[in-house]
């Protein structure tokens, strides 16, 4: 059907369709398979696209993408088996190290089927040749062995990692936490030891196969012959990767910033990252420094919610995870995650990393003076020691940041700082801290964005206290103890006893007023002094305005609605229309309501004359109607286009006819356009606009509908 189409075009369409694939959807996968089948002549291009997609897509979408691969090789077979088989090891292992344990299991099951003939096929040959699948199997076996060894050694010198020892089973699955820990954190602290041994001049994990490399390091008996097929030039690779990672991180922070423009910490973070990027681009930095920067960047990007996993070391398109659940995001899976210490590094106590107290004050301008960083880096580049003091000094703080993000930091720098950091490091550290990358020291227990606590009640003698409460200091007044005053206003704790009923509690009074200082002047309602409180108040004032403007006009026509019956009431939630934002559903409902041309309306123009009050297309007059939601007289089924008012339905008819005509004269659409449309019409997409009747704005309308239904 599309023999003449260039490969690029087919590949681009295929890629787009792949990107729509978010979940394990049989329909979409078989659709993609058919595309691959029909475009078998473009197999090289499509294989490339698919391979790239599996590499770059979010971990949660890797399995569906792999299933596409599986479906293609099983249903189409050659030549895809050939093209995809060549890089199968890479495709598989790259994905494997990134996905969660459940997905790994699925992947292992899938791998198993690849060693068998295609189901239902007469051909006894396996799906992939053993040449392709064997390396993967070996790697998995090695990974598993390494994991067990590591676990044992880790347990020998550390508190046990909360992982059950994996029973030997048919699966080759590695302990996921271990693997994450290894691939993410285990920067070899003393790289010189390993580097000559394996011929890696620097200690960056092999990008294609970080975990495998780690396993080799812990299993010195492994033969290098089973290594990954395509070694990568490392030195050049690293700095490019680092740049990519930073660029990606910048994108992520930008996205966050865009959705939360008021967050100044994000802005500072973004600024710091941009500065770092400039420095990296403009200057040659020694590998060691790069390694340290990279570790920080990796950790930082892992700590950002939308950050694509940094461990891929591959350019990953920043796709937000479609699944909302945090567990499904790629993160170290166990919340009770202990820092893995795969190497017998002497346990470092965090305090030894604490920055000098002189760096507590952040500068107002969170920028990196480039000469400063150059000096700092120059100070470290003369020796082979990779532990750049400055960056290491920043490490605990970054670790603290990670700890705040839900998992414990690795203690990866092997030795305490040999010397006090150079003065420049103060600036860097302070800049990082000011940028919000670092929490204020001490890092470990600080809470980010802690709600400012209302002033705690003062500790006053009882007489003063009762004076404050407006009571004469009576002899019988129970003295107010410090313990009773200890409750800060937000943390109310009143024991449920008869005795505590009589105790005056000023903190409760301040809870009524001071904790919500932002008051509406017309109704006395209070709002928090936070950003959200301000937003709510703004909506609240809008609501007052709406009410006051519409009430007069409508005062005569309104009537009390019937009550709801039990069932309806149970499922009905009063939405506080006076402060809550309209929910997404409401907007969706409003949009959907707009869709039908019959429902469109415009206010009756003030200058309406008999000549203008008829539709130029059908010559019929517009229908005057009182619109309850708009609170004014309107013309229903009307649309104003270029100064003239038409019937919306007439206008659409004409427009459609016009479109139809122009479509016929246009060049045919892309080969896969039609099919793409089908894909995007999957239930996933159409199911978005579920309209809840309970919505605030749709409320009145819907209840009227309800009444009609009830009484008819």
């Amino acid at each position, binding site marked *: 059907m599309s023999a003449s189409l260039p490969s690029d075009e087919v590949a681009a369409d295929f890629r787009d369709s792949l990107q729509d694939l978010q979940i394990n959807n049989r329909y979409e996968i078989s659709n993609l398979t058919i595309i691959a089948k029909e475009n078998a002549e473009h197999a090289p291009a499509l294989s490339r696209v698919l391979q790239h997609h599996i590499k770059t897509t979010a971990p949660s979408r890797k399995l569906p993408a792999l299933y596409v691969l599986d479906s293609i090789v099983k249903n189409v077979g050659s030549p895809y088996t050939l093209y995809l088989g060549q890089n199968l090891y890479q495709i598989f292992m790259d994905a494997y190290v990134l996905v969660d344990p459940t997905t790994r299991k699925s992947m292992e099951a899938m791998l198993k089927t690849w060693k068998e003939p295609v189901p239902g096929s007469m051909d006894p040959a396996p799906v992939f040749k053993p040449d392709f699948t064997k390396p993967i199997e070996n790697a998995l076996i090695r990974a598993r062995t390494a994991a067990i060894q590591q676990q044992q050694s880790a347990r020998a010198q550390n508190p046990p990692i909360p992982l059950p020892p994996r029973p030997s089973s048919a699966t080759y699955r590695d302990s996921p936490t271990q693997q994450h820990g290894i691939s993410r954190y285990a920067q070899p602290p003393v790289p010189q030891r390993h580097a000559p041994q394996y011929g890696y001049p620097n200690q960056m994990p092999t990008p294609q196969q970080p975990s495998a490399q780690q396993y080799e390091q812990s299993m010195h008996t492994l033969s290098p012959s089973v290594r990954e097929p395509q070694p990568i030039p490392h030195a050049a690779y690293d700095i490019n990767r680092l740049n990519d990672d930073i660029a990606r991180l910048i994108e992520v922070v930008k996205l966050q910033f865009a959705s939360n423009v008021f967050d100044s910490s994000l802005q500072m973070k973004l600024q710091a990252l941009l500065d770092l990027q400039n420095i990296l681009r403009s200057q040659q930095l020694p590998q060691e420094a790069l390694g340290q920067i990279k570790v920080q960047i990796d950790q930082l990007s892992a700590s950002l919610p939308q950050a694509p996993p940094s461990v891929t070391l591959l350019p990953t398109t920043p796709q937000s995870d479609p699944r909302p659940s945090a567990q499904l995001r790629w993160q170290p899976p166990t919340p009770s995650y202990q820092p893995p210490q795969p190497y017998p590094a002497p346990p470092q106590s965090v305090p030894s990393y604490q920055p000098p107290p002189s760096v507590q004050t952040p500068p107002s301008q969170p920028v990196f003076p480039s000469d400063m960083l150059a000096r700092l880096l120059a100070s470290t580049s003369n020796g082979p020691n990779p532990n750049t003091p400055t960056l290491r000094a920043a490490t605990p703080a970054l670790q603290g940041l990670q700890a705040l993000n839900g998992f414990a930091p690795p203690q990866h720098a092997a030795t305490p700082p040999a010397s006090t950091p150079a003065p420049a490091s103060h600036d860097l550290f302070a800049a990082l801290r000011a940028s919000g990358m670092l929490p204020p020291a001490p890092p470990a227990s600080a809470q980010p964005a802690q709600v400012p606590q209302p002033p705690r009640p003062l500790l006053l003698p009882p007489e003063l206290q009762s004076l404050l*409460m*407006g*009571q004469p200091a009576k002899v019988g007044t129970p003295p107010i103890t410090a313990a009773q005053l200890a409750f800060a206003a937000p943390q*109310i*704790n*009143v*024991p*449920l006893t*008869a005795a*505590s*009923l*009589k*105790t*005056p*509690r000023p903190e*409760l*009074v301040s809870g*009524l*007023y001071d904790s*919500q200082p932002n*008051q*509406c*002047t017309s*109704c*006395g*309602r*209070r709002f928090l002094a936070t950003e959200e409180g301000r937003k709510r108040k703004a909506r609240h004032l809008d609501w007052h305005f*709406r*009410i006051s403007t*519409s*009430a007069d006009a*409508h*005062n*005569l*026509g*309104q*009537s*009390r*609605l*019937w*009550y*709801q*019956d*039990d069932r309806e*009431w*149970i*499922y009905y*939630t*009063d*939405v*506080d*229309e*006076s*402060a809550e934002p309209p929910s997404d559903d409401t907007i969706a409902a409003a949009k959907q309501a707009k869709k039908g041309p019959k429902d469109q309306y415009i206010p009756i123009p003030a200058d309406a004359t008999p000549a203008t009050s008829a539709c130029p297309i059908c010559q019929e007059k517009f229908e005057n109607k009182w619109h*309850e939601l708009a609170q004014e007289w309107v013309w229903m089924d009307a649309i104003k286009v270029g100064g003239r008012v038409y019937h919306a339905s007439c206008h659409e008819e004409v427009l459609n006819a016009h479109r139809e005509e122009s479509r016929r004269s246009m060049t045919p659409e892309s080969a896969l356009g039609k099919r793409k449309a089908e894909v995007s019409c999957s239930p996933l997409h159409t199911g978005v606009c579920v309209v809840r009747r309970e919505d605030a704005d749709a409320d*009145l309308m819907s209840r009227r509908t309800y*009444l*009609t239904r*009830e*009484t008819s």
Partner: protein
Amino acid sequence: MALPGLSLPGLGLASTPAPAYGGPTQPPTEQVARREELPAQAEWRFEAAFTQQYTVRVLHGHAELFGVELATNQPYNLSGSKGAIFTWQGCQLEITGEAESEYAAQETEYAIEWLNLHGMLETARDDRPTDGPRVLVVGPDHVGKSSLTRALAARAVKAGRTPTVISLDPREGLLGPPSSLTTVTVGSQMDVENGFGISPISGPTVTPVKTPLIYHYPYTSPAERPAVYKALLTRIALSTMNKLEEEPAAKQSGMIIDAPGSLNDPKNGYETIHHLISEFSVNLIISIGSERLYNDLNRRYGANTGSDGAITVLKLSKPGGAIERDAGYMKQLRTRQIRQYFFGSSKESLSPHSHMIGFDDMIIYRAKPASGEVEKYGADDDDYDPSSSSPVVSTNATFEKITPSAAMTGSLIVIKFCPSSSEDYAVRDSAVMGYLYVADVDEARKKVRFLAPHPQRWGDRALVWAQWPEAVADLVT
């Protein structure tokens, strides 16, 4: 005083009706505003007649009326209400108009108790997010039960909660006319002037609407037909519990049950209280103003009874400002509630609609007056189960079909959600769709003219004529 909604066009209503209640309308004289300085923890108690303009404005400082904060420099019309404006830190009020009684009071220990009670509920909400406090407020009449309920609800709302308030006194409605038993999840700000504001109407409202679920108990006191009352309690509890299951936030916020004062009666009321506690799984009982009731309840449910100990019983003293609302005032209050149901208030005026319906086109039930059989019927009916009571013996039936008569004029007719030909128990347990006012019964032409809150007809529903609340003669003429 202008009565809202009475001069609406198109309804065939008289345009100059006499006020329905409370003596002659006072000429709107120019009132002199006066200022009152309140020290900290004092309150301004007032009893304003329905016919008197009575406006309060906070000039500076914070002040609240039953837990609802008054905005500074906003006039509040408190005509026809009795209450106390309390201030924690002191405030200055500007008062316009005459009240039957007004004074500044310093004995306000109750305010600390009430606030601590709020703190206890907040603590409970934080401690047990999946199992919010379920509070029952009991006590004799006129001790401030409803005011406490309102204050607790208002403060909970202020703290961002969505408490569910259940009002079980048929003598005074909540978001509905009297004889309503109401359950409502309060999700938005409360109102200074009328507490819970207004139930949904077709237009904008000054205070966000609250959507109640209403049941109907057609007698003055639970003691008149305890079985019916208990059946309704079961029903309300079922709906409310279901709703809280649907809404975790509401469940965490818990419920506050305002029991009628007539339950404070060992002979007739305790059984109902017990039923109430078990149906709503009450875990905190607040007894106001009755030492005996507190002791009885504490003995039965208190922590030292050896049972699960899940129920705490607390005793509050009667606030000094709680005064008896005499029968005349209560009647006026009921009249006003009925009027507001149809015509709205000065803030949101409503247009009721007339419906003429022939005798043959409707079935009207009458709630049979309580009689001697009640005792027998209501005895040892502890665990009332509506489903098992379907074959109600005819002598025990709550309702009987009647032919409309002129005696109905001025009464309320309740529209139940159940179809008109339902079983007796179904009619009894069915929720209320709305109320009708019998404007006129033309026995000769066999037609009834109803005043309905809404233009749409109600369809085939059971209509119940309740002798309670008492007829209001001149709602319309």
